[in-house]
């Protein structure tokens, strides 16, 4: 069922891509690339580019990755560069924290970010804070990556979104990509960055294809960390989101466009540092703001965005209070009907937009 939904969504994505093709000239030799393959390409290119880069995690080597993101890499690079670990998150994560200080550039895969809680002390206390505590002596160029947030039917312990948890901590960069282009460009930037980066992927997005331009397919294509992207320009209201829900926002925008409401959809791309300027610029144009995320409401990404807008110049441009669309404030249930109603649906976004615009 989830696969069917994915297919339908990708179908919608493909349709909207086709529509855009008719309206705008597209560069030749662009291709449909799945998110999983974009991530694979990014890692492959960076492994080739720099001897010091290596990948470590559970099932990343001989199993080709629990979600097949690292497929083919072990065959190509061997045991030294692609390392299978026992099921020890703490060890995986912390084994990687000093190699950066000792000269290496590791990529640590968490099978899901839920398991990163086992090792979160090392991510925060050994990775994020070390450059500061050592007053610049010990940089930590490490990437922690893996799927984050809700999947389909995996229940409470495997469905949490960690964007707010990691986004809270100075010393970390936190990325939450949406499209294949986002994933490739940002993962390459993350690997090349000399600082600890938490890279929050999404399991339900792995199989979704996106069009990638020829430029995006090149070996040197990177996207700067800390810059949001306006996926769809609009004039009536700003929708800000990250990861999978960017797609939901675009779908809601398509429906609302038929009723004459033009939504500007912003894909945050990076949670920390947050591109507040992009959001402010948009709000100053549209005068309305709705944030959309899969995580829980309290102390979340949307809460931070609203606080920042209030503290900045854009507040005076708001014609209505900024509003958050979030996951329901409960542990994720298992039964499909309950799960579906625990995360934002397109109808929830449409409802919130209309309430904000008072239509």
């Amino acid at each position, binding site marked *: 069922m989830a696969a069917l939904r994915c297919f339908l969504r990708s179908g919608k994505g493909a349709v909207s891509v086709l529509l855009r093709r008719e309206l705008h000239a597209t560069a030749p030799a662009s291709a449909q690339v799945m998110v999983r393959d974009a991530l694979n390409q990014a890692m492959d290119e960076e492994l080739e580019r720099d001897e010091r880069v*290596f990948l470590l995690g559970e099932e990343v080597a001989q199993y080709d990755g629990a979600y097949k993101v690292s497929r083919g890499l072990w065959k190509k690079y061997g045991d*030294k560069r692609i390392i299978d*670990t*026992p099921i*020890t998150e*703490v*060890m995986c*994560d*912390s*084994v*990687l*924290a*000093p*190699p950066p*200080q*000792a*000269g*290496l550039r590791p990529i640590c895969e968490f099978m899901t970010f839920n398991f990163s809680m086992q090792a979160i*002390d*090392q991510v925060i*206390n*050994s990775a994020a804070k*070390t*450059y*500061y*505590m*050592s*007053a*610049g*002596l*010990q*940089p*930590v*160029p490490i990437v922690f990556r893996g799927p984050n947030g809700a999947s389909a039917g995996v229940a409470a312990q495997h469905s949490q979104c960690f964007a707010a948890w990691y986004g809270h901590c*100075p*010393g970390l*960069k936190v990325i939450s990509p949406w499209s294949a282009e986002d994933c490739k460009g940002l993962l390459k930037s993350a690997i090349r960055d*000399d*600082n600890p980066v938490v890279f929050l992927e999404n399991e339900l997005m792995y199989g979704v294809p996106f069009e990638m331009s020829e430029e995006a397919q090149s070996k040197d294509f990177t996207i700067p960390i800390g810059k949001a992207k306006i996926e769809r320009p609009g004039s009536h209201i700003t929708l800000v989101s990250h990861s999978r829900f960017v797609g939901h926002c675009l779908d809601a925008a398509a429906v609302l466009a038929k009723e004459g409401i033009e939504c500007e959809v912003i894909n945050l791309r990076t949670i920390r*540092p947050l591109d507040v300027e992009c959001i402010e610029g948009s709000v100053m144009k549209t005068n309305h703001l709705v944030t959309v995320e899969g995580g829980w409401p309290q102390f979340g990404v949307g809460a931070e965005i609203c606080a920042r807008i209030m*503290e*900045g110049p854009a507040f005076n441009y708001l014609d209505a209070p900024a509003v958050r669309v979030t996951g329901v404030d409960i542990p994720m249930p298992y039964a499909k009907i309950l799960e579906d109603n625990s995360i934002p649906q397109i109808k929830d976004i449409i409802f919130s937009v209309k309430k904000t615009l008072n239509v």
Partner: protein
Amino acid sequence: MCIWSIYQWIMCDMLADFGCNLISSSGAAVVMSARTYADFTTQASFEIKKCDVHKLDDAPATEVVLTREEGLQYYRIMQTMRRMELKADQLYKQKIIRGFCHLYDGQEACAVGIEAGINLTDHLITAYRAHGYTYTRGGTVKEIMAELTGRRGGIAKGKGGSMHMYTKNFYGGNGIVGAQVPLGAGVALACKYQERNELCVCLYGDGAANQGQIFETYNMAALWKLPVIFICENNKYGMGTSVERAAASTDYFKRGDFIPGLRVDGMDVLCVREATRFAADHCRSGKGPILMELQTYRYHGHSMSDPGVSYRTREEIQEVRSKSDPISMLKDRMLSNNMASVEELKEIDVEVRKEIEDAAQFATTDPEPPLDDLCNHIFSNEPPLEVRGTNPWTKLKSVS
């Protein structure tokens, strides 16, 4: 005049000719030292305690050689560490040092013996009782003390404090109990990956030995044959809890199970050195990790906020001080084997005292870090960025 003085007088007389020969060939300054120190033994052999072993066919040597030079060096370093920690105690009581301060006095033989058994190009990581290691790994007393007092001249520019000191190939100074152990294995992984013939010494205490992450680390280090020496500094107390009350098995050197282990007298610098050499050879020959338990003792409490006498008796502390003090042990060995004179060692004491006084002077007068430095060093190799202050109108600057 005591026998010892008569003996020295006779020796000096006998060697006067020798001294005279030196005058004619080498000049006045050399003559002074030759005449004063010519009668010392250049090296001597010592019997040291045998180590208990776990899953090992051989053990470190029990007869070792100490040269006069080495002896004087170890003495000076241990004395410097001792005096540095005692000065820190003083400054803490004067409230010039604040927060956490975990002192190392009593355990000097461990740090010095370990460093004597490895190279500066090897790597080392430890927990929060780190001042001694910061010194043996290349930090200066001045930098260490200024870090304790939170000044800009501190080894981490005042931003780390007692528990977060770093130098080349020394990864701290880690505050979270046990967290440094997986990190140490990670450093060893880097050594192996980069094919440098280096190893990592990874230290933890008897309290940390019960942490789960240490067992995860044992598994992976053994599985991947990482060049890491795990060292448990067993000072008998994890904060206020004695080892008997905390551990189902106090044979910490056996805790690695499939990892071979050694139990070493951590109060004897020669024992520690010999065992470390043995362990380093084991690692460098590609056999994988090895575990050492150093049986040692701390005179101070767990930290400066712990008087250290509610869970152990003053008599116990006194007994260790009088019978097993590492500095006294080395001093006795050198004196009774004519490797140094009382005056010479006193001279070293005076020099050390001066160094510590100067460092303390620096540490109390150096200014605190500038407020401009508050937000720096968040990211490495990054263009300057803005950091929110305590209120929305305060925007601070951060540079790498």
